[in-house]
């Protein structure tokens, strides 16, 4: 049996916002090629968790290791760490003053000093895979939300990260555009990317996840495989949460 390679280890993470305890003793390990989906009610800390991994928030105690190297609470060279972590946000903020292609090229060329031709070739291939090659010279304002989000994913991929983080990337999109983004993410999962996905899209979560983590009020309540979680969750809180997504018809039948 092939040895599992642990990409990310989060140990006893604790984070506060002023007085408020936002993350309480969170520990997670993620292996290469694994797709982890985190679900939970608003304010449970799942977005904060992702931001802590990427160093956009500081943590009060606990450690995070990326392939064995400690990355938590780093003062120096955090940018080198971030090159290995790809993150896609809910607000599809591409850089408005650059073309789509330049948006994608900026990271690899400026922080990784890669050759322009090589990166351009890769960028164009990825754009073609997501069906947006014809937009490479357009500006973000000319694209729809779904298209911008797909470009954001390509932009993160071009950095060749070890792990990809997705923070509710479809939450701000119109329903018609959600699917096209989720399809891209499914493809990535099939290709064997290591991903942590925070989402509200339950059917999508069920389809893509290798493992589901349910969080509430800053702690992990339940952790299991998707089938178990969605058909027969162990904890009451998880049951209550999933109930939110089922409706009885209003007319009572």
């Amino acid at each position: 049996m092939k040895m599992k390679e642990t990409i990310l280890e989060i140990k006893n993470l604790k984070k506060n916002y002023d007085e408020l305890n936002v993350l309480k003793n969170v520990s997670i390990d993620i292996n290469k090629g694994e797709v982890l989906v985190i679900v939970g009610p608003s304010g449970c800390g799942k977005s904060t968790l992702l931001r802590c991994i990427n160093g956009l928030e500081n943590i009060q105690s606990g450690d995070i290791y990326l392939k064995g190297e400690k990355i938590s609470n780093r003062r120096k060279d955090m940018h080198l760490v971030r090159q290995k972590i790809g993150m896609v946000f809910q607000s599809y903020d591409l850089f408005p003053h650059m073309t789509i292609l330049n948006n994608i090229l900026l990271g690899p060329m400026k922080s990784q000093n890669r050759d322009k031709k090589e990166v351009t070739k890769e960028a164009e291939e990825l754009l073609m895979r997501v069906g947006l090659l014809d937009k490479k010279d357009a500006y973000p304002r000319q694209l729809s939300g779904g298209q911008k989000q797909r470009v954001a994913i390509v932009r993160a991929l071009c950095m060749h990260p070890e792990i990809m983080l997705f923070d509710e990337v479809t939450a701000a999109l119109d329903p018609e555009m959600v699917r096209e983004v989720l399809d891209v993410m499914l493809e990535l999962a099939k290709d064997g990317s290591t991903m942590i996905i925070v989402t509200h899209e339950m059917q999508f979560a069920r389809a893509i996840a290798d493992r589901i983590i349910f969080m509430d009020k800053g702690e992990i309540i339940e952790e299991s495989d998707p089938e178990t979680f969605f058909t027969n969750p162990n904890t009451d809180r998880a049951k209550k949460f999933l109930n939110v997504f089922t409706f009885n018809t209003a007319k009572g039948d």
Partner: protein
Amino acid sequence: MDLDFIQKYTPMYIEAGVITLRIAFIGILGSIIIGLLCSLIRYYKIPIIQRLVGIYIELSRNTPLLIQLFFLYFGLPKVGIVLSSEACAIVGLIFLGGSYMSEAFRSGLEAVHNSQIEMGLSLGLTRYQVIRYVLLPQAISVSIPAFAANVIFLIKETSVFSAVALADLMFVAKDLIGLYYKTNEALLMLVIAYLIILLPISILFSLLERKLRYAGFGN
């Protein structure tokens, strides 16, 4: 209207105009540099220095240029610092302009969403790279209207330099009125001189603003 008079003294106006423009140019350049520095200091909230910059801005924005010039030209010599008219004019203009430019740039900086910065950092760019490739380009384009207004404002402010013996347009006009009583001609040439200087700049900036708005910055 004495056209001969106008013809005779046009060169004098042109020369004075050139002096005005030259000082305005240096003053505006200096203001931009000071303004950029101050705006970055305030944007990044660098302790202590930020306070000093704040005081500087309030002082220079709430006092007239004329007084600043008088202080430099008449007051400083009393403590041994003697500046030429031109030097006083430039220093005064930069002192005043620096604070106006600083506020223009700062509003540009603050208009760039924090999420843009985070986006840049997430790609693994250093702080410096984020400032250079993500923050500044967007901040500058947002600042252009205020920047344009400041440029025009500063050029207008140069009209007080005659008070410290600088042979600029106002000086020439006043001189000619006093010497030859050709008030109408002198004033007409004065108005035309300023129109020639300021109208093109004003129109240029309007066009620039419109063009940048089409380039669509912001979602």
